[in-house]
């Protein structure tokens, strides 16, 4: 179905793009530690790993966005140092980034031929020919759109297909796809897979980044797993089971049984009881959440399990009123809460500590005091004026209770350590006396001492009758901190673990999905 693209007669199996012992870091961060990767012509090579594993950095090093600190990138057998994605593309390495990076106001045809428009006489752009060519190209991938339409008039999925058409309309040897299906409809995914197959038959090498295990097992030949900037596995997909792949991504042995007591969590919460304090029914959002229902009782800690991109943070935000929904309802103590409104959720008694402390949590210029009282302003003020006395009392209470270390309540929060910033956020929400506390990665990036403090605080709060939803990419934290675990995969609830099932093997089996079970 696809016209053969011009390429050299490929020697199947010969590496076309290769990273040899590449290291890359920034002050205080090692993003890649001597990682090697090779891509053969005519193969689809999956690149997987959890947050911070180094996938994006590896792609950026290979396409010249970042120069490597050590090691080398080789392309077609020679060492290369691309000056950037543009030069890489000129040489035949095309990247389709996660965020569609096209020009929304230009037409479909202009986007596809951007920078290499067909010229007519006088050197002017031959718009007619460009649009005919574009239409033809898109037809081949089953996309029927008017190429003269501005790109932004199209849906995200079609935009993604245009990006792909653009990438492979150039004479390519390597295509790098970073989560290409995240905004595609199932029908479009099928078209994409067809395209990938025909590219492979033409001898093009494809690097495929995705969190969706189903896709990896369907279309990829080999898989490379990164974790914390290190290479942990490279091999044929056919030799792996799903659960083995998940174990590699998370850094676990399938059969490994861990002793309890790695974290500061106690042994479960005796005082769970009564009606759910919060309940979600059928939360839906296109491409993100599919019919999510869950409930938390007072005193219960419910863990939310799932791989990167499974929709954990979106569920957290939905409960806190901060995620736009297409459908579904949230009830707090049996009463429905207006969706899409953080103030309504806060008034109902829901508090959320977001995943990214710096981007969504703290306000760095403002003082510790002003950060703590931010959400409590309505109850600390009368006639629009803040009561300094009530404010200072509240701040003092919580700085003591959570042992927040700052030179004074007036110190800007941006100057505190990560752990103390996190405690400031906890104080912001605890001073509202919430009924439900949603914690999205509450211990990420904070030091060991603060981590232990936060963990025992979660236990203490549950003991006082709060309902807690806990998200953590650290398995121990979820397993030891939670009374039950709701497992998400690709935006759906796939399993709920209770009692003795709140353990590593069942969780990993649920994360991996499919029919397999851990035999360890």
């Amino acid at each position, binding site marked *: 179905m696809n016209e053969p693209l011009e390429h050299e007669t490929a020697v199947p199996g010969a590496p076309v793009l290769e990273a040899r012992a590449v290291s890359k870091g920034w002050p205080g961060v090692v993003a890649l530690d001597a990682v090697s990767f090779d891509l053969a012509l005519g193969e689809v090579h999956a690149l997987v790993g959890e947050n911070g594993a180094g996938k994006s950095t590896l792609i950026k090093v290979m396409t010249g966005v970042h120069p490597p600190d050590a090691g080398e990138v080789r392309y077609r057998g020679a060492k290369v140092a691309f000056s950037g994605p543009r030069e890489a593309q000129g040489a035949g390495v095309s990247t389709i980034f996660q965020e569609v990076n096209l020009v929304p106001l230009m037409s479909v045809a202009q986007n596809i031929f951007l920078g290499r428009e067909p010229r007519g006489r006088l050197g002017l752009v031959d718009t007619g020919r460009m649009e005919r060519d574009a239409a033809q190209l898109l037809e081949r991938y089953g996309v029927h759109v008017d190429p003269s339409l501005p790109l932004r008039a199209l849906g995200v999925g079609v935009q993604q297909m245009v990006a792909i058409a653009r990438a492979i309309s150039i004479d390519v040897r390597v295509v790098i796809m970073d989560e290409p299906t995240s905004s595609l409809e199932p029908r479009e995914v099928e078209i994409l897979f067809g395209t990938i197959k025909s590219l492979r038959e033409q001898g093009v090498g494809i690097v495929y980044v995705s969190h969706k295990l189903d896709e990896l097992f369907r279309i990829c030949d080999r898989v490379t797993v990164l974790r914390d900037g290190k290479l942990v596995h490279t091999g044929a997909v056919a030799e792996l089971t799903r659960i083995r792949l998940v174990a590699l991504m998370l850094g676990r042995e399938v059969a490994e049984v861990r002793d309890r007591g790695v974290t500061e969590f106690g042994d479960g919460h005796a005082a769970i009881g009564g009606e759910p304090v919060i309940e979600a029914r059928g939360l839906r959002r296109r491409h993100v959440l599919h019919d999510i229902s869950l409930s938390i009782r007072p005193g219960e800690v419910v863990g939310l399990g799932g791989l990167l991109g499974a929709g954990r943070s979106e569920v957290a935000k939905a409960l806190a009123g901060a995620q736009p929904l297409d459908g579904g309802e949230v009830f707090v103590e049996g009463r429905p809460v207006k969706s899409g409104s953080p103030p309504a959720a806060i008034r109902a008694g829901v508090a959320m500590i977001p995943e990214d402390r710096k981007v969504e949590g703290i306000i760095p210029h403002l003082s510790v005091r002003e950060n703590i009282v931010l959400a409590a302003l309505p109850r600390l003020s009368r006639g629009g004026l*803040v009561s300094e006395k009530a404010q200072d009392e509240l701040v003092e209470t919580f700085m003591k209770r959570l042992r927040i*270390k700052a030179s004074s309540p007036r110190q800007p929060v941006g100057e505190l350590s990560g752990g103390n910033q996190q405690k400031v956020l906890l104080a912001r929400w605890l001073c509202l006396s919430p009924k439900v506390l949603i914690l999205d990665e509450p211990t990420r990036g904070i030091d060991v001492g603060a981590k232990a403090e936060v963990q025992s605080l979660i236990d203490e709060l549950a003991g006082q009758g709060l309902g807690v939803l806990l998200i953590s990419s650290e398995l121990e934290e979820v397993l030891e901190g939670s009374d039950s675990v709701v497992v998400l995969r690709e935006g759906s609830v796939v399993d709920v673990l209770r009692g003795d099932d709140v353990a590593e093997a069942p969780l990993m089996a649920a994360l991996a999905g499919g029919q397999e079970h851990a035999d360890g």
Partner: protein
Amino acid sequence: MADTTAVSRPGVRTAAPAWVRDGGVYVALLALVLVNLVLTDNFVTLTNLRTQLVQVAPVMVVALGMALVIGTEGIDLSVGSVMAIAAAVIPLWLGYGPLPAIAIAIVAGAACGLVNGGLVAFAGVQPIVATLALLVAGRGLALVLADGQLKDIRNPTLLALGEDSAAGIPILVIMAAAAALVLAFVMRRSTFGRHVVAVGGNRTAAFLAGLPVKRTLVTVYVISGVLAAIAGIMQTARLQASDPSAIGVLIELSAITAVVVGGTPLSGGKVRILGTLAGALLIQLIRSTLISNNVPDSTAQMVLAAIIVLAVAIQRREAVR
């Protein structure tokens, strides 16, 4: 609690120390006065001080509104045109008396702010684009309202506003000081003040904390519009004429400069009221120093441009920290 050992200061500290950022404008102001003591005859006198303050008062009022807008990570380019609309409205309503005319002018300013704020908060238009639209359209509207003509103002109340003093202080200066005091109090003590810096400092965090982000944005643009209208009234009273084609032209640049030089970062999250007043005064004094030393106004403008660049550069360093 005074334990500071666990306090980390991530990143590299670069050149500009905090006092340059926060206090630089006052030091510059002091230095300028000292230079003039030596250089310029009759500069540091009470009469000249009065003249300078009366001239700068409308700029200060506009700059105060601008400081709030910039504090939310926005910008208001339409202030000059809003001044023109206010000026154009006054002669139309002066027949009903000075107070109704002033009230209508202020309402017109609030309406302009509502348009800007609505575009920014609800339509999601970038502040620079939203207010640029009104910068262009507002001046046109003012000219239509005024029939494109300069009109003399002979109303005694308005003339008194521009000329008279109370307790030796020009009324225009008192108005600017009052506006500054009110805003300083609002920023320090009110929940709205907290909302402004929170929305400017981290809009996502403010939204997640349940703050009324959109209402806050609309309100700052309305305040900016009202203050611009007041500045238009002040300027009209001072010039004793309503001149919608010339009033407030390029005042947005002076106001933005005053705000930035005064230590309010363009990236939002901080509002310095006193610094903004000092910034406006500094610009005024630099310009008049240069002019009274026979430097042409065009050169003075280049010096101002250099000052903006310097002030922004000092703040960039902070952002990098």
